[in-house]
């Protein structure tokens, strides 16, 4: 982990409320594990006070450039969307533990299921898997066509299915509806998205091997404040926990109570 003032190289709106931002900085050299996140300070004046956790979406290690995608929703992400090329951005990272790449052998198949703003970290993951000669299939769920992004990019890496709840793009329904119906083959499942989606994946798809990326409100982002704890599954003592920021955000199937 490093704290650094990086420089914004690119900022563009790519879907409804969704922005793509690329920055340059020394800390990019450390971003070798997909699924890690950055803790970004959007205001200089302690208003907003806390950093915002945002996943790494893509990395160019040689150019020391990193791309993130974010949804401008609340005050912090709105301010982020107002930053311009050339502005400095205070970033802490990379943080947390990413998706394990060695869960698969060469030639095996990974199924990547993303939902909404949970899609970004899967892009770097997919690229890294493809680099290791692992077959990737993507199922990307969005609310509607206007919310969808990065579909061409995922298509270039492997078979990509888009689902939308209102049917305006691709398959109509939830990602789980599609997977239950089409039953694509895979060895390991990786997912990131809203909790209800991940819960449906665990319950309905019941994958043998799977990794989930979790979200929780954070304070420090480095494991010190105990803001982001999750109770572990089936813990008789009731005191066992994991911190999303430093033990996660990615956990294997069955560790965290979804």
């Amino acid at each position, binding site marked *: *982990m490093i*704290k650094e003032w990086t420089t914004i190289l690119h900022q563009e709106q790519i879907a409804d409320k969704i922005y793509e931002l690329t920055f340059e900085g020394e800390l990019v050299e450390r971003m070798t594990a997909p699924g890690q996140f950055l803790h970004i*300070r959007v205001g200089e004046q*302690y*208003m*907003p*006070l*806390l*950093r915002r956790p945002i996943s790494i979406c893509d990395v160019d290690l040689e150019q020391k450039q990193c791309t993130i995608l974010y949804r401008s929703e609340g005050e912090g992400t709105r301010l982020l969307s107002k930053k311009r090329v050339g502005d400095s951005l205070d970033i*802490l990272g990379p943080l947390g533990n990413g998706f394990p790449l060695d869960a698969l052998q060469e030639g095996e198949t990974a199924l990547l299921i993303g939902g909404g703003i949970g899609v970004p970290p899967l892009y770097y993951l997919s690229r890294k898997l493809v680099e290791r000669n692992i077959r990737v299939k993507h199922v990307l769920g969005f609310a509607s066509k206007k919310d969808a992004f990065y579909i061409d990019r995922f298509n270039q890496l492997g078979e990509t299915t888009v689902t939308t709840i209102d049917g305006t793009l691709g398959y109509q329904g939830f990602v789980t509806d599609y997977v239950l119906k089409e039953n694509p083959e895979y060895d390991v499942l990786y997912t990131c998205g809203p909790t209800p989606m991940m819960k449906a994946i665990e319950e309905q798809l019941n994958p043998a091997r799977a990794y989930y990326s979790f979200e*929780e*409100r*954070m*304070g*420090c*982002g*480095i*494991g*010190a*404040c*105990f*803001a*982001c*704890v*999750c*109770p572990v599954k089936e813990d008789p003592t*009731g*005191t066992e*926990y994991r911190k999303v920021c*430093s033990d996660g955000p990615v956990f294997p199937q069955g560790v965290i109570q979804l």
Partner: protein
Amino acid sequence: MSRLAIKLPGLSMKNPIMPASGCFGFGREFARYYDLSRLGAIAIKATTEESRFGNPTPRVAETPGGMLNAIGLQNPGLKKVLSEELPFLADYDVPILANIAGTKTEDYVKVAEDVSKAPNVTALELNISCPNVKEGGISFGTDPEIAAALTRAVKDVSEVPVYVKLSPNVSDITKIAVAVEEAGADGLSMINTLLGMRIDLKSEKPVIANRTGGLSGPAIKPVAIRMIYEVSQRVSIPIIGMGGITSADDVLEYFLAGASAVAVGTANFVNPFICPEIVDELEQKLIDKKVDHISELIGRSWKSCYSPSLSH
């Protein structure tokens, strides 16, 4: 002697900067980023007799210039703190202020007795903002007599000096301060968080699962400064000041108000390097101001004025 060194009961500090309790865990995470020996002291996370999971999440919420937290005293419990956390910290050349909590006097006494024996614990910090289950949940910190009784009980068993950490959620904090001083407190920590709440407009419920939370960060600094200004004129024990400190200038303001050392809480979340950065900045500020020793500043905002008949 260095410009920054401060000697308080139990705390021989290279500099007056320590991370505040609950905002630094037991130091492990920060130890990866800088040498903990650079700190004046470390206030560790509240320790209770039994391990505690704490409150459900969300446990934090942002507010204008501040944040709310309701962690709920999550900690691994007395045994593990003694066997794992404190020994880890013993590798660093830094005094430990052990924050202790409980819901009954006996809880505090038990933890105080055991923790104060740990070789690197050089002082205790009594967190009296906790609800007192025997007195119907009112906080130990809101009644001068209850606060004094708890202080006495802990002083009786502690092998190290005891700092009482005062709650700001009271009508007259000077009464509590005077009461615990009379009960034998060696110092005060001021202030703990203000009680606050945020409501989520979508769910229409409090953002924090526990509903209320403790307000910390820059927003509360003026309240802390006012309380330290008042209390430091009424007691003769030293005060560790805290609440919204983010810079060396803030530290100077706390000293002028009457603090003899400070703790940095929330700011560690925004910048994990804040404590050593403030230490360096503070040294330079004193050189620029031609202050030979930081202790000269303690209480200077009122020492030079007329005598303390405060008006509100």
